[in-house]
Each structure stands twice: as structure tokens, then as C-alpha cells.
């Protein structure tokens, strides 16, 4: 059987019926999106590994218990579990993951504190590294939406459900995230490949 051709729902049914390969394919299919989403939020590889592991243990326990009921929505479901585990972690640590403010946050306040000399070291070949840095400078709410939208492939409706805000708020946060990224790139004269 070619598992790569199966839908998520078919793979879940296969796994529940005892076919471990169903889970293997689901992990292969989404490991990058889920791990990257976690990693960009927690900024620590070891912690990201732990949360990724805990996420799939929850997934396995739920599937084995026959409690999964989100037809065709595997990735949003797993992303929600991962997101909740990240939130739990920061609640335990009692620290914010990053610069955090409301949606009216002004990115130039952050830029003003930035070391000017680092701009000289920003070259085209390091764009992705620079972009990662800039994403980390976004307020947590904006970073969350950007990551869930891009890496989690979630709709704004799904993001709104996960983060417990309205669709318009989720959409607004994405707009602020993009605007702030654009300002930061302009402020640091960072150019992109395409």
C-alpha cells in the first residue's frame, strides 16, 4: 500500500486499526511544519524536541482512546495541541517568549535599541537567518499568527479558534506582523531573494 497517497483521515483509520505505518506517514508528512512552528515560538531546539514529542504522545493517546473526531482536520488539530503545550510551558516558566505588546506595538522602538553595527554583517546569503531574527522580534501574538498561517497552513478561522480571538483580530495580527516585518526589513535595508 502506498501510504503517501492516502488522505490524513485514511491514515488515521489505518493507525487506529493497528497499522503503525499510518502514524509514520502522518509524522513524515507534518513533522517539519509542526516542529518549525514550535521551534520558532520557543526558540530552543531541545525544548522544541520535547514539546514536539509531547504533542505526538497526546495525539497517540487521543487516537488510541477513540476520542479523535475532527474529520479531515489533522494538522490544525495537532497544531492546536502543540500551541497549547507551548502556552503551558510559558505559563510554567512565567516568562514571556519574546517582546510582547498589544497590536499597536511600534517596531521602531525595538529597532532603536538594536546594535547598528550588526546591519553591516547582514548579507544576502544570510537572509533566512535574518528573517528568523526579525520574526523573533515580533510581538508574540503576531508571531503566533504568522507561524500558524505559514507553517501550520491554518485558515484565519482556525487560528482564531485556537487563539480564542475573532477572525478579524487574527487577520489584523497577520497584517501587523507583515507590516512590522516590512518596516524592519526597510529599517535594516534587508533585501530578499525574490
Amino acid at each position, binding site marked *: 500500500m502506498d501510504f503517501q497517497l492516502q488522505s490524513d483521515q485514511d491514515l488515521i483509520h489505518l493507525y487506529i486499526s*493497528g497499522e*503503525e505505518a499510518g*502514524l*509514520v506517514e502522518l*509524522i513524515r508528512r507534518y*513533522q*517539519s*511544519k509542526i*516542529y*518549525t512552528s514550535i*521551534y*520558532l515560538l520557543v526558540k530552543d531546539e531541545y525544548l*522544541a*524536541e520535547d514539546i*514536539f*514529542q509531547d504533542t*505526538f*504522545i497526546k495525539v*497517540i493517546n487521543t487516537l*488510541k482512546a477513540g476520542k479523535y473526531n475532527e474529520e479531515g482536520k489533522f494538522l490544525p488539530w495537532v497544531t492546536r495541541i502543540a500551541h497549547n503545550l507551548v502556552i503551558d510551558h510559558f505559563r510554567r516558566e512565567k516568562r514571556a517568549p519574546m517582546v510582547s505588546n498589544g497590536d499597536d506595538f511600534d517596531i521602531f522602538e525595538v529597532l532603536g535599541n538594536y546594535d547598528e553595527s550588526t546591519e553591516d554583517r547582514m548579507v544576502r546569503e544570510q*537572509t*533566512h537567518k535574518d*528573517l*528568523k531574527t526579525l*520574526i523573533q522580534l515580533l510581538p508574540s501574538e503576531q508571531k503566533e499568527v504568522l507561524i500558524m498561517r*505559514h*507553517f501550520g497552513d491554518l*485558515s*484565519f*478561522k482556525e487560528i482564531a479558534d485556537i487563539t480564542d480571538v475573532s*477572525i*478579524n483580530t487574527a*487577520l489584523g495580527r*497577520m*497584517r501587523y506582523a*507583515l*507590516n512590522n*516585518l*516590512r518596516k524592519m526589513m526597510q529599517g535594516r535595508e534587508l533585501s*530578499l*531573494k*525574490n
Partner: protein
Amino acid sequence: MGETFTNSLNTVIKNAQMKDREVQENLDADDMIFYHSIRVDLDLLKKKPKLQTIHYILDYSKSLRS
């Protein structure tokens, strides 16, 4: 006539709802252009977990087999 009015009203409501959904699900043109310009670079940020982590998850799953 009443039925025609109801049908027309339903169509108007449905169109308005669809329009709302389109607005809610789509960013402004400027935002979309910028977003598409950074998509490739965002993709470069993708990382995978260690194989050891995947093996741990799969071993855990197998341990639950009855």
C-alpha cells in the same frame, strides 16, 4: 410574491456572508504581495526534529499495542 421576496433576501444575505468570508480570509493586496515575497524565505526556516525524537514517539506508540 412573498416567496420571491424571501428568495431574493436569502440571496442578498448569502452574498453578503460570502463577501464577509472573502474579506476575512484574504489580506489586503499590499500585504499579500509582501507575504508572497517572503514565502520562499520563510520556507528556508523549516526545520525537522531529530530522528531520535521520532523513534521515541514510534516506540511509545508500539508500547501501547495490546
